[in-house]
Structure formats: C-alpha cells, structure tokens
C-alpha cells in the first residue's frame, strides 16, 4: 500500500472532482460485489433460514427454531460424522503441516532437477481431486489392491487389508488421500515464505551453540509463523468442509465409520430431500469457520500493513 499512500498527487486538471471519481470507482467494484452477494451471500442467508425451518424439497418450511440442530445432535450418525470430521481435520492438518515444512526445506536452494521435481510434486494438488481420489479407490481395491500386493511382497502383512471395508484403515485411507493431495500446496506456500525472508535478518538472528532444532524453532518458525498460520487456517477451513474424498473413496462407509458432516448433509439434504435438516448439518461448523476466517483475514491484513 505504500505506493498508494505516498504516490504523487494527480494533477488537478486530470484528477477531476474526487467525489465523482470515487463514485465511478465504486461502480466498477459493484458487479463483482453484486455477483458474490447474490450467489454466495444470499444462499448463505437462505441456508441459515432453512436450517431453522422444516423445509423439504416438496414444500416450503415453517420456522421451527433450533429443532433441526437438536435433532441432529441426537442423531448417532451426526455425532459420528462430527467426530470423524474433527479427527480427520486434526490428524490430516498436523500431517500436512509437518510434511509441508519438511518438503519445503528439502526443496530449498538450487540443485539439479529441482524444477522437474517441483512439477512432479505439485501434481497431486493440481489434478482435479475427484480424478485422483478415484485412482486411490482403485489402489485400495478390496481384491486387487496394489498397496496390499506390495505390502504382501515386502512381508509387512500376511493377508490383504480391507482398506475401505474396515473402520480404522478406511479413516487412514481418507486421511492419507487428503494429506497426499494438500502437502504440495503447503510446501509451496512455505517455500515462498522462506525464499522471501531477508537473509541478513536470519543471519543476524543466528544462535550459536544451539541445536538445529532450537535454531529451527526459535529462528525459522517465528519468521515463517504468519504464513504458516494462514496456511493452517486455510487448510483447516477446507478440510473441515471437505466432501469429495469421502464421497468417492468410502461414501462415508463402512456403516458411517468415515462419515463426515459435509457428506452427511449431502445425503440428508439431496437424496433425502430434507433441506432444513441438511442445511443445519452443513452449517453446524459455521461459527467455528467464521472465527477461523476472521483470524486468517486479520493476519493477512496485518501483513498488508493495515492493522
């Protein structure tokens, strides 16, 4: 923003009346704002309204207060979905951040083949998630799983694992695919953060006689903390509301053991036609998501030098 604040004042003759310019300026912003308000803001409000009514596909609903939320809270499948959503988000996010930082450091500096490696590493993140998930589903196949074949050959297991048919391996599979897909993105964001660090600041902060872990946690982490924080919040928001991996990989099974809120909302709301209840399930996380969004934006605003 510095360039705007200190920019040379426009010559009066060409600047025109400031207020008219501002008015035109806001007019230019209007289409984007209207579009987003109409197709994102309005549905969000409508969804909140639905969650407070007994709306179904067939009829408009009546206001029933928090009954949908109470009903959801009593529903064992909902509780399972809530539990799984939290577990997947917590484990996957921890794994993603750890691996992203590790990969970012491994990729630092210039070495031969780096750009080729980078192109390969980002593949999981750049291919549409539905298509990679279906490939993983085939790798986890009940009869022809290549993962089982390799594990059997190496001798790690002596009989094939029913990856998607047993609760814990199925959760593992969901978390693995989610992590596999997201690590490149995290790594690239962190790499961007590291590359942009001023070298003299890091050198000045060098602590002699400390272990590499101490130096890592006391010098590097504080320096990349803001970017790490944004990356974690973004990832949590998208992991908590993730649907595609579960929908395609396990369908929430076996018997809802990998069910998550977004997928359950889809089942209740679309094939089940209970729009009100479905909206309530989908929006259950809204307060938490709003909180995380505000935190992320405050960090971004600080980086932009506004706050």
């Amino acid at each position: 923003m510095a360039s705007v604040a200190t920019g040379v004042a426009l010559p009066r003759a060409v600047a025109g009346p400031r207020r008219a310019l501002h008015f035109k300026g806001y007019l230019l912003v209007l289409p984007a704002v209207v579009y987003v308000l109409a197709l994102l803001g309005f549905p969000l409000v409508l969804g909140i309204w639905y969650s407070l009514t007994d709306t179904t596909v067939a009829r408009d609903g009546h206001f029933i207060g928090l009954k949908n939320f109470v009903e959801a809270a009593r529903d064992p499948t909902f509780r399972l979905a809530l539990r799984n959503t939290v577990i997947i988000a917590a484990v996957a996010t921890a794994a993603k951040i750890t691996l992203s930082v590790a990969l970012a450091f491994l990729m630092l500096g210039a070495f031969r083949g780096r750009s080729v490696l980078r192109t390969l590493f980002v593949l999981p993140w750049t291919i549409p998630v539905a298509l990679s998930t279906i490939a993983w589903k085939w790798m986890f196949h009940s009869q022809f799983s290549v993962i089982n074949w390799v594990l059997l050959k190496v001798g790690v297991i002596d009989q094939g694992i029913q990856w998607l048919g047993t609760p814990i391996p199925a959760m593992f599979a969901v978390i693995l695919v989610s992590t596999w897909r997201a690590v490149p993105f995290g790594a690239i964001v962190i790499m961007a953060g590291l590359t942009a660090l001023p070298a003299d600041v890091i050198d000045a902060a060098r602590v002699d006689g400390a272990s590499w872990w101490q130096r890592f946690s006391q010098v590097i982490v504080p320096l990349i903390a803001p970017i790490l924080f944004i990356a974690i919040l973004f990832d949590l928001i998208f992991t908590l509301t993730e649907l595609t991996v579960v929908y395609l990989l396990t369908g929430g099974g076996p018997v809802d053991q990998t069910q998550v809120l977004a997928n359950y909302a889809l089942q209740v709301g679309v094939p089940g036609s209970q729009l009100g209840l479905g909206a309530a399930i989908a929006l259950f996380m809204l307060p938490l998501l709003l909180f995380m969004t505000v935190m992320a934006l405050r960090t971004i605003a600080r980086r932009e030098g506004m706050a």
Partner: protein
Amino acid sequence: MIAESLPRDAGSRAAWRVLGLSRWQRGTTLRVITLAVYTLLTVFPFYWMIITTFKQNSDLYSETNNPLWFNAPPTLDNVTYLLEQTRFLTWMWNSLVIGIGVVIITLITAVPAGYALARLRLPGAEKLGIAIFATYLVPPTLLFIPLTRVVHTLGLQNTIWSLVLVLPTISIPFSVWLLMGFFKNVSFEIEEAALVDGATRAQAVFHVILPISRAGLAASGMFAFAISLQAFLYPLVFTSSTAVKPVTLGVVTDLIRGDLFYWGSLMAGALLAGLPVAILFNYFLDDFVEGITAGSSK
C-alpha cells in the same frame, strides 16, 4: 519487492545456514533418499493410472499377476471404450464451455473491481478487497443446499449453465484479490503520463494498464478455468443427465454401473481429463501462491 533486489533464494540459503547445515550436508544422501521416496509416493498414483489405462482386463483382474507391470501386451481397449461407449467427448466439451463461461464472467467482474480497488484510492478499498477475498473462504459445502433452490428457481437445474452461473462465486473473490496485487505493482507515473498526454482514464486503462498487467489477467483467467474444472460438489448436485455433466463428474459416475467399476476406462478418463488441468495449473502456480500469501515478498 525485497525478494527481487536480493540474489535468488538468498532467504532460503540463510535459512539453511542458520540451521548449521553446510553445503555438503545439504546434498547428503539422506536428502536425496527422502526426496526419492517422496517422489515415489507423489507420482505412484499417476503411474498406476497410466499402467491401468493400457492393461488388458484379463491382466488387470488377476490376483497372481504382477500389478506393477504388463503381463500381457498393452492395449488401447480401455481408451476406445471410454471414447466410443461413453459420452467422454461430450463431457470434455461441457467442461470447456463451462470453463470459458466462468473465465468470461470472472474477468468481466473482477478486472474492473481489482483496478478500482487497487488504483483509485477509494476510501476503504483495502478493507473492501479483503472482504471480497473472505468470500473465497466460504466453502461450497455450506451453500449447495440453498443453491439447489436458487438454480431450480432460475430454471437452470440439470444444465451446464447452472455451473457457469454458480462457479464464478469461487473464482471472482480470488481473482479480484490477485488482480489487486498486479494492478498495485504498475507504476502510477505511467498511468499519469498517459492522462497528462490527454488520454481518458478508460484509454489509459486499455492501452497502458491492462497490457502491462497481462500476466495477472492470464493468471486470473487460468485460475477461473482450473477452478471450474476442479469443481465436484456443484456438478454433482446440479447436473444429473449424462449429456450435461462436466468431465470430472462424468468420468467418476458414468463408468461405475451399480457395483461394476470399469477401472481401465476410469483410469483412462482420469488421465485424459486430469493431466491437461494439472499442466495448466502448474503454469500459473507462482501467481496463485503470490495471491494466497498476499504480499509476502513486500
């Protein structure tokens, strides 16, 4: 832009130094091995897609064959099935039309907004910019239920136009943010010089600002296109007929008939539809990261 004034990757070299790792240690076998293992995990699913695509069914569905290599001659049967027995080409076409529609809507709305917010010194412009960006963080899973009603009311259910209409809600917020960054980096003197020379502001924008910012326009456009191809939930909810599905949905729904998965053709479809998107995305990755990290290099 501190990063540009320093030797490339100075920050990362300093990061290594502070950990006390010498140049020699950075190149140690451990690092090479770790990277090799990681590469293997990253690319194996893609290898698996490729080898499955070209395997004969008898080879594919055998518990004794080595699944990692061809035990029978490679075949194009799965690709042929995909192209001739499914609507794969229709789905690709649908995705293309949807993508182009989303790009047009995104650029028409995001370019003026990004320009005004970055350059017209509007009171509250930064806050408004961040507010628009915030909507990028509203996930489709919160919106698809009420949106089905909106799409239905507009009579767009089960058409590709429902997706052309709805998907820009994801791409506009991010593109506005991305373009704000690009427009801010164009020097004010250049625009003012054009204005002093008697150009109208519109002429200055079209002849000076936009040509200079074409990398940003390209990045926004490609981002909008990639987003529309990545989408899964909205297509799943808004389109149901085979003829109107985009490719990501068509491949993973129409090649599964009840309990029967056409794995060979599924992988062929994933490969043929997925790789172009992945390559496209890779091209403007740096711009995308720049947008996400929001001025980390300032």
